[in-house]
């Protein structure tokens, strides 16, 4: 379980996040929406241990973040907006490369199965030659090599075709339901968020998103 209490973040005297508190249970998919610059990525970076909060506490599976960064990072998978892959490597080589550096050992069969589960079958194709959707799938697959409990995704489906988007959404739903992973997800695609997420948190005070969520029949949870 992820537990966030009274989390604040200030950059150059500008308040980005103000006293956020929420929790995520295993198997839950949480959506984060809000205008650009509202603090979605900042929140994900804090949850991913890539940035320090100005105040507040974060606990993952009852372990506070301050207790030991390595232990916390072992339980986190982070998918950034960027394609964080070796472009000249094949899908197979990327998977093996990051598996070698990972805490968990997985054989080639399991790595290939992970890709197949994401409908990524181009095992021997170089990343350069993959479509945008395939790259995004591989980007997520690499983040799952060490079996994290918490998966943080920062606009993982930006700029890809509808089919790939559906396949990624479907995979993430399964991941939460069957393996009990906690997933926190940011996206500007409201349809995708509505279909995928159990709860939606609205960051920032832009009334546009509040009204948009209400039009989808959802009560926005304001952070």
């Amino acid at each position, binding site marked *: 379980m992820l537990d966030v209490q009274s989390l604040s973040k200030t950059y150059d005297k500008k308040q980005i996040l103000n006293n956020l508190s929420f929790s995520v249970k295993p198997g839950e998919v949480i959506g984060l929406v809000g205008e650009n610059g509202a603090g979605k990525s900042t929140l994900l970076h804090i949850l*991913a*241990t*890539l940035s*320090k909060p100005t105040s507040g506490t974060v606990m993952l599976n009852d372990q506070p*973040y*301050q207790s030991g*960064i390595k232990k*916390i*990072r072992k339980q*986190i*998978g*982070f998918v*950034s907006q*960027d*394609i*964080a*892959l*070796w472009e*000249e*490597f094949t899908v197979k*080589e990327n998977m*093996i*490369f*990051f598996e*070698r*550096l*990972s*805490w968990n050992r997985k054989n080639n069969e399991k790595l290939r199965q992970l890709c197949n589960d994401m409908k990524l079958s181009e095992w021997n194709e170089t990343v350069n030659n993959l479509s945008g959707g395939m790259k995004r799938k591989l980007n997520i697959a*690499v*983040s799952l090599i*060490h079996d*994290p409990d918490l998966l943080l995704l920062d606009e993982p489906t930006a700029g890809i075709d509808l089919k790939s988007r559906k396949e990624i959404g479907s995979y993430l739903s399964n991941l939460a339901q069957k393996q009990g992973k906690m997933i926190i997800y940011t996206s500007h695609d409201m349809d995708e968020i509505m279909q995928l997420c159990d709860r939606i948190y609205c960051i920032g005070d832009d009334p546009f998103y509040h009204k948009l969520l209400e039009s989808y029949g959802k009560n926005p949870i304001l952070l």
Partner: protein
Amino acid sequence: MKQVIATRLMHWKKQWIGLVFWLLFPLIAALSVTMIINTLQEDAKVPVGVVLEEQTVAAEELVEKIEAASFIRMEVLSEQEALHDLEKHEIDSVFVIHEKFEQNIKQNNRTRLITGYQSDMSFAYVPVKEMIISHVQQETGRAKAAFAVKKLEKQYNGQEEWTFEEITAKSKDIQREENLLDTALTFKGTPEAVNDNPRLFPVWGLWGIFSLLSTLLVFDWVIKEKQSKAIQRLVFSRWSLKSYLLQNLVLYTVVMFTVDLFTAGSLYFIFGEWISPISLFVYRLLISTAAFLFACLFKKPFYYYTMSFVLTLVIGISSGALLPSAIATDWDWNWFDLINPLGPVLSENYLSFWPAAVVLSFVLWLFRKEQYHA
């Protein structure tokens, strides 16, 4: 470490042509440049023809003497060939060593031993003639001395019964051992200059410079990988970025040192020039670490490459490895040895400014806080 080696091998598999090229570049470049310089020096020598009318020890010695002159390329020819080549200006001058050369020297007969020919374009005739005259005088003097010894032996009823050959051989031994003709001239009050300036060993100097350049260029991986998005994943891996970079630095250093040892063997085999493995290791450690730290300062490979070439050129010129003449001035260059980064390879001077600066910088890098934190 095993896992990092495996990931590095995956990178090398993709870049093996470039990597092999840059690893072998110092050896190939040092060999090529040295061989080209040797060829040019050989071509720049003045061709002189020698005609041997007798094959005696004295005649052979004179030929060896001419051949040993650094400015002459000597060819033994028949008289007809030699005069033909002289006429065509293919050789500078011709010297005919006549029959009974040895016999005449022994008899202290210094006339008509050698005939010299020159053309209107000859310019090495006079120095070669002087060299031959000097040699003949030396040999006739030696013969005269041998006869004097024999005469004295007879006069005083000596028991040794030395032959002429034994006396001249002994004379040559003494000349060689005593080194009578080698004199060091110094200004009053200044110590005698030691003529073992290591900066004048061009093969290892050239290798040192080319090795520095290749190491800098090979270490562009630091910039490429540090700037890549993929490396951000290390945050969620077993290795920190620092640990990953450090292990790769060790791996590169080991591989490059192995190539250095191969280079040392090759240069010894080809030129007979040896370098101690300790010097080689210290130099490798120094340039690998320096290149690594230098690469850490850059974000764009283009600026790094530009600065690498500039740095190599500056060090190449200032160290005296490329242009020994640049340091052969009235300046007191002893202080330069202290800051010369090529010190370990050129003068086996391990305790200089550069190793100390690199070690200090490396320690600072090692204890610097990592970029990613909680």
